């Protein structure tokens, strides 16, 4: 059993807004088979364990509820490994 995340922690919650098969009619076949999901971050209002229902206050001051997905969710987008095909261009243009 997960430990409870303390109130006041910056967290992400999520909800399924539309289930597979319940999507808008104009949605293509592959998207029809998956749910429409929503995620939003904020400060946890009461202690809750990951995977349980939780309430947050968002940066806009709204109070929203949903399943607790993560505590202190990371910004993990980056540059990644070098793309040497692009790095080579500088040298080519000097020749």
């Amino acid at each position, binding site marked *: 059993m997960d430990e409870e995340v303390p109130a006041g922690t910056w967290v992400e919650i999520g909800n399924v807004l539309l289930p597979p098969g319940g999507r808008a009619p104009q*949605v293509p076949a592959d998207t029809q088979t998956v749910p429409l999901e929503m995620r939003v971050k904020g400060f946890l209002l009461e202690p809750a364990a990951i995977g349980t229902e939780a309430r947050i206050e968002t940066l806009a001051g709204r109070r929203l509820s949903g399943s607790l997905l993560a505590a202190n969710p990371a910004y993990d987008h980056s540059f990644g490994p070098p793309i040497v095909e692009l790095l080579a261009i500088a040298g080519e243009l000097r020749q």
Partner: protein
Amino acid sequence: MTFRHTSYAEIMTQRGEIMRASVGIDYDRYRIGRIAFDYEGLMRDTGYGLAQVTEIQRRTAVGDTPLVELRNITALARRCAGPGKGARIFVKDEAANPSGSFKDRRASLSIHEAKRRGYQGVAAATSGNYGAAVASQAAKAGLRCILLQEAFDSQGLAQPEIAEKTRACEAYGAEVIRLSVGPELFAVFLQVLKETGFFNASLYSPYSILGIETLGYELAEQTRTLTGRDPDMVIVTHAGGGNITGTARGLFKAGAAGTRLVAASVDLAGLHMASDRDFNRKSFTTGHTGFAMPFTTWPDRADVPFNAARPLRYMDRFVTLSQGEVFYATQLLAVLEGMERGPAGNTSLAAAFAIAQELDEEQIIVVQETEYTGAGKHPFAQLNLARCLGIDVRRGDPRGGRPGERILIPERPEQLAATEVKLEPLRRSYIRHALEQLPAGAELGEADLAFLSAETRTTTAHVKEIIDEMPRTDR
């Protein structure tokens, strides 16, 4: 927030009243025919002239960005061109705006208007630079801010460029609602507007377009100061149509009547915009044909009843570039001019490099934007994701690329080429979409024909010809 399957259809039926309350414009007033609406009246009745927009933007350090001559890129284009060819290329460094893109111009007037009307907050549906711009302007105005992004696929994999925009918006103090792939985002947006009573800072309102006019005006004035002449050509990265519309209107207000306007988009043909599978196989999240084609051939598919962005009214020419070519141009700007920008905003730069070779040396091309770059929002991040998803990334003739399957980064600058999109089929497609809006049995009036003629930049006689040539079922 509550949002259930049954509420989707219900919220869509409330679309009209939610829009009226959240944009503060009674769009029905402007209807003048079965299809036609009074476009200039809609723009004029906002009450904002160019001088006032400029003054509002200066208060938050928006606009007045440098126009930079790209001497080394021009020299390289001349090496690739025939004798006497190779126009001077300039770029408007819009990354110098507070949140790092020209989108600050679009957000500034909306946020000013929201504040003036006493709204407590603003909301916008956008996964791009516009979100950061709205959040930045709202922060300055002391308004609360909610942004909705289409941000991740069903595997939970976030588009890196959008992940960076999530971070930026949260850094500016905004609530970011991230959604998985699908057009139902619009219904969620309506729900948020209804629940909060916030102002809809739509990308497609008159305020948004009036905010871009300063960009066209400034670049005309700056080009005159630096070169003593008007730009021969302005190239605009084209997606939803606002950028080209506002820029063209600003150029017109500056009296640059002879300047030709070129729209440039990244070619993403074959990738479906609402497909969960295709979502992360697009290595560009904006400036691409997935927005440009539908919005050029029918602008009124936006989050307001009448879109103030009307691209076919303003474009003289429309070209596409491959993803590999735009990444190559992004690298040219970095290694030849010392400016690390983009990537999507460099679509127009890639087009300029190719098109400059058609023009004479004394002629002038202005690339009308740059945008900030950083983690996620960078060619490395996009190409690493592409490789992860099995897309073949290598050097080669970019003509051999295929969106979602193979990205070919040019081996030589000579391989950059702008592919022409013919305007006549776009006009026909626009008119076909317009006729689809007609109730059964209804006929077009004179006002409608005049409107279609202005919309497609052709004569009413030609509009009639196009209609007459259509199969019966389309009429």
